[in-house]
């Protein structure tokens, strides 16, 4: 592997890592910070991709469709929280697993009814569709680079929100001791509804942003669910910084795994997870 190719592979790894962070960001919020086991995370991702597909056709502009899609996703999040999720905060985790697993089945069936079972694609927005040449025969699509930029911005935004604002402090406090926060005069119910909706919106946004480079197809949510949990667990539950570092590590490990040890490429990410959890069972930035 010469230097140019090596550097391109590093770029591939970082770019994939940032995408993984985005994909896992909704889960970082709902599972990592609120402490709810949310197996329906992949379904929210899938809904986002399908929304991008339909809304882009309806509105004609990808970015406007994105904005509209986020509004729809927030509405879905608020409704779900009010309808079912709020009854389970005090319950055992098993109830959350059962509920969110049920949601997967419901969303999968609804997707089949509304959109059918065909594979769809979303066109890359015109201004970003061209590619920049890197070597004599390889180039990089501008949209991929733009996507990495958006992922970074979301990572910074989330870190700022959770670590540096009063709202973030309240959310963190609420996840540690719900009653105490409530008795301090904070409407924890409303707060949780908002954070849950934000988590759903982030998952859907990831699906929407990924839809032009990925494709839109049944079962796409299942593919991101496991890797999202891996990101949150490696990074340390509840840490935005950890999730970002973990996502980058996984992106690089996966990229070089495929190139250097193709025989076990499928296992590299999980070997990394096992190694990190042996070293730090609470995750890289987890609180012991």
């Amino acid at each position, binding site marked *: *592997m*010469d230097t140019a*190719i090596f550097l*391109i*592979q590093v770029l*591939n*790894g970082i*770019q*994939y890592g940032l995408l993984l962070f985005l994909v896992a960001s909704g889960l970082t919020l709902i599972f990592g910070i609120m402490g709810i086991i949310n197996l329906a995370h992949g379904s929210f991702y899938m809904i986002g991709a399908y929304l991008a597909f339909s809304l882009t056709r309806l509105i004609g502009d990808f970015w406007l469709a994105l904005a509209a899609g986020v509004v729809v996703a927030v509405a879905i999040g608020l409704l779900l929280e009010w309808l079912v999720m709020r009854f389970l905060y005090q319950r055992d985790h098993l109830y959350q697993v059962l509920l969110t697993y049920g949601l997967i089945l419901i969303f*999968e*069936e609804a997707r*089949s009814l509304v959109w*059918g*079972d*065909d*594979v*769809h*694609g979303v*066109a*890359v927005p015109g201004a970003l569709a061209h*590619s920049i*040449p890197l*070597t*004599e*025969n*390889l*180039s*990089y*699509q501008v*949209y*991929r680079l733009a996507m990495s930029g958006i992922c970074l911005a979301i990572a910074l935004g989330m870190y700022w929100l959770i670590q540096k604002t009063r709202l973030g402090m309240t959310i963190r406090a609420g996840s540690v001791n719900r009653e105490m926060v409530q008795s301090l005069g904070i409407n924890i119910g409303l707060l949780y509804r908002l954070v849950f909706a934000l988590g759903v919106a982030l998952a859907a946004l990831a699906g929407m942003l990924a839809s032009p*480079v*990925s*494709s*839109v*197809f*049944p*079962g*796409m949510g299942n*593919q991101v669910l496991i890797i999202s949990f891996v990101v949150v667990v490696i990074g340390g539950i509840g840490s935005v910084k950890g999730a970002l570092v973990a996502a980058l590590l996984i992106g690089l490990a*996966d*990229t*070089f795994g*495929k*190139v250097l040890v*193709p025989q076990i*490429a*499928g296992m590299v990410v999980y070997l990394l997870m096992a190694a990190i959890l042996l070293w730090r069972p609470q995750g890289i930035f987890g609180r012991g």
Partner: protein
Amino acid sequence: MSGNKLQFSRRKFLKTAAGGTALAAGALHAPFIIAQPAKLKIGLMLPYTGTFAALGNAITNAFKLYVAEKGGKLGGRELEYVVLDDESDPAKAVDNAARLVNRDKVDVLVGTVHSGVQMGMVKVSRETNVLSIIPNAGAGAATGQLCAPNIFRSSFTNWQTIHPLGKVMMEKGHKTAAWISWKYAAGEEMFQSFKEGYEKVGGKIVKELWLPFPNVEFQALLTEIAAAKPSATACFFAGGGAVKFVKDYDAAGLKKSIPLYGNGFLTDGTLQAQGASAQGLFTTLHYADSLEFPKDKEFRLNYAKTYKLQPDVYAVQGYDAAQMLAIGLEAVKGDVKAQKGIVAAIEKATINSPRGRFTISKAHNPVMDIYLRQVSGEQNKFVGVAWKALADPARGCKMG
């Protein structure tokens, strides 16, 4: 005690009385039952949910379309369907197939799409000797090591679909190639077949690249292809992964300098989603758009009229499964127990398929033309015949 005794005798009386009535009713209805032979039970074990749902539905639609064209009867027998969603889950395959055969007592087992599930079904078919038709799954073993007199295939083997590709690429001047696919059973079968065909005409595979199934992060391997600089790339992908691969390959700027080839699954049912990235790609398969057969035109028209959908290669395979069954049943006048007669009739038949006429090999797999197609708009346009009457080598099959 005496109360119990009384109850017992009353119950016994009721039972006897009921039995008598049932007997009388049975005797009354008996002549009608003889006049009207029982419906033939067809077990449709296909995916109706999940990634392959669209394929399962296309096969079912076309199967029923052929039966409807025949007035709802095959070999003089009316049909009754027992439909089962196999969820493309290999873990449930044996139980599901056994349930259809043993509990629901189906006379014919039709299915399925997923090769892993197919292996479970083949096991049950071999054990119970039920007449079986495979309308898609391309695993070579089903008509190879595991071939059996009662098992037929109306679709293809993985080997057949990609074997002619090496010859095609060589004719277009590509002496070296990279290979990329998912690392799983179908991907490896496709690779072996491609390699065999390509090396036979003097081609050299300079780079073999594999991804874990169903991973769709291709960027690292695309970089490897660019670094290896082969004359062309051959691949096997299908469904959502095929859409992403074709788009990524184009976005990485490789399409111009290192042309992409594959078998037809790369561009079948995915062209709307692939858009401009797929334009001009050459693929090989046993079906194409714009074939000039009258049978194909008629089939496409009827299918579109009935289901308000355009048929695809999977629909053709479902239609031909019904055609093969009809040929067998007609030879024995609908007596499904006369399996030897059914098998002999199908083995001898020439099936007038929308894909063109084909015959059945000794291993019970279609012997058919493989076409070269090129993507143009949202169609896989017929370019020519890549290989005339290609038969699967059926390695390990002891039949015939």
